């Protein structure tokens, strides 16, 4: 393997995209992903590609639509509030079957939230945050090395199925530095196969290509949606990626992705040192989700513990997979707080022993909120009180 170079996550990602043959980037600045456009601004010029600092996120995603329609490997990147703005563009990209890469270096939300790293865009990313029946392929790196190597994987999957791909990272991954080595040779865009559907100069007298997302004639849209669903089925069957650690003898199974998985690895060490048998499955593709494997593993453990920087968004997918056969629990950090290994270790013990410490439970919150409301009734009315 090549010598590792110390690189920031965002820069490793940008360089990885260039090496994967990306020759169009449009974006609009937002913390914590600013190093991506900054890097692209000089690097695209070096390789003869195009960099556009757009006037807004919406403009950037629509520029991506135009570039992707020509068949060039194209991307945009942003962070949570910016990715929300791009949702209209993403549903058009999905509806037009355009391969492309969208990167979300997540921060705290909802709204403007905070600039610290977060994971609360899981649902938006995996369900498609725009209108219509569509999916995006979602890859969740957990290291700088994966951030740098995933763009190539993302472009390949996206082109293979003509489905927009998303890399779902977070502010911590984007801002941190680690040793980076690329596991692939730089891709020469000229050597990539010519997309038969792409628009551009017609020199061969082929039938005119058209890229659009609507079907107004009777039955036309349904046919388009169902044809696309066939590809979704193939992706769900063939493209699931995950990593397992210590699952052979586990009594507790952690499910965690991205940066939460890193904290969970440290927590596993603490728990294992105490003699608690704990393992982990790390979904690397969030869609397609490794539901089948999680179901198999869940049938062999006493408890499943989800660790995520959101209030159970990923747990919804875990619950669908486990289907009530094993108790599932949640250790959640939201408001852009980073999971702490020592706290996850406590959550592991709670999950195993039926305790509440370090486990997030909405029912407990309801009780707390009820009590607060009862007390507030006796207090003088405060204008604008949050009750």
């Amino acid at each position: 393997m090549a010598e590792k170079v110390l690189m920031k996550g965002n820069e490793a990602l940008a360089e990885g995209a260039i090496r994967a043959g990306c020759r169009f980037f449009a974006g609009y600045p937002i913390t914590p992903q600013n190093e991506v456009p900054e890097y692209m601004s000089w690097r695209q010029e070096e390789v003869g590609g195009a960099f556009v600092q757009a006037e807004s996120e919406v403009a950037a995603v629509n520029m991506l639509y135009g570039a992707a329609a020509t068949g060039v490997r194209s991307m945009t990147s942003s962070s949570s509030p910016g990715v929300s703005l791009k949702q209209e563009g993403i549903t058009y990209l999905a509806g037009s079957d355009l391969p492309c890469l969208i990167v979300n270096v997540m921060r705290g939300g909802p709204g403007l939230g905070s600039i610290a790293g977060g994971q609360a865009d899981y649902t938006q990313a995996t369900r498609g945050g725009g209108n219509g029946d569509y999916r995006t392929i979602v890859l969740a790196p957990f290291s700088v090395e994966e951030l740098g190597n995933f763009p190539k994987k993302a472009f390949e999957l996206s082109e293979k199925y003509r489905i927009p791909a998303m890399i779902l990272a977070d502010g911590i991954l984007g801002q941190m530095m680690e040793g980076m080595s690329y596991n692939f040779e730089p891709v020469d865009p000229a050597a990539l196969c010519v997309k038969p559907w792409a628009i551009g100069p017609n020199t061969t007298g082929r039938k005119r290509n058209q890229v659009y997302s609507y079907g107004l004639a009777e039955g036309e849209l349904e046919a388009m949606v169902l044809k696309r669903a066939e590809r979704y089925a193939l992706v769900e069957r063939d493209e699931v990626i995950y990593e397992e650690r210590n699952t052979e003898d586990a009594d507790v199974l952690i499910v965690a992705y991205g940066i939460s998985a890193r904290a969970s690895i440290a927590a596993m060490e603490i728990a294992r040192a105490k003699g608690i048998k704990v393992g982990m499955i790390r979904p690397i593709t969030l869609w397609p989700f490794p539901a089948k494997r999680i179901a198999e593993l869940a049938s062999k453990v006493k408890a499943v513990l989800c660790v995520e920087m959101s209030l159970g968004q990923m747990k919804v997918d875990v619950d669908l997979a486990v289907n009530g056969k094993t108790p599932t629990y949640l250790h959640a950090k939201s408001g852009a707080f980073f999971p702490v290994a020592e706290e996850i270790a406590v959550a592991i013990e709670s999950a195993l022993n039926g305790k509440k410490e370090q486990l997030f439970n909405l029912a407990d919150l309801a009780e707390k909120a009820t009590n607060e409301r009862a007390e507030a009734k006796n207090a003088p009315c405060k204008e604008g009180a949050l009750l």
Partner: protein
Amino acid sequence: MYQGVRISGFGGQGVVSAGVLLAQAGLVDGKAVSWYPSYGPEMRGGTANCSVVMTDTEVATPVVAMPDTAIIMNEPSLPKFEPLVKKGGLLIINTSLVKTKATRTDIKVIYVPCNEIAEKVGSLKAANLVALGTFAGATGAVSIDAIANAMKKVFKRAKPEILELNRKALEEGAKLK
């Protein structure tokens, strides 16, 4: 071998670059490393800090919640990080700017007049390297040579005489144990 380090001080003191140097030095030494900065609403004169992990195996979490070593470059950083240091860990305090003494007795504390030593060596800007030198000398987690080599990679445009000055700062720092 595992070392989780927190370096904290004013923006402009070079605490974030000191962390990058440390990570780069660890990488040169063949270790797995990570570096993670605080990137809140930071500004020159405000406080900044970073986490560095060096290990022989694999870096689990890059955010060092309980450091083995905390390097305290300014007064406001002391109350923030002293309580977090692991029992038996190390606290390096820049006495040029930190007048308060540490209160914990279950950790090792080294007091280093970083600014004065740096000025004696030739530049106040090298105060962060004095502290890194002390860290290297006291923990053995990384060698002075590795940090000096890392400097060439991190500060690519630095003149040879500056690199030499920086090395001197590291060596002076390493003398304090």
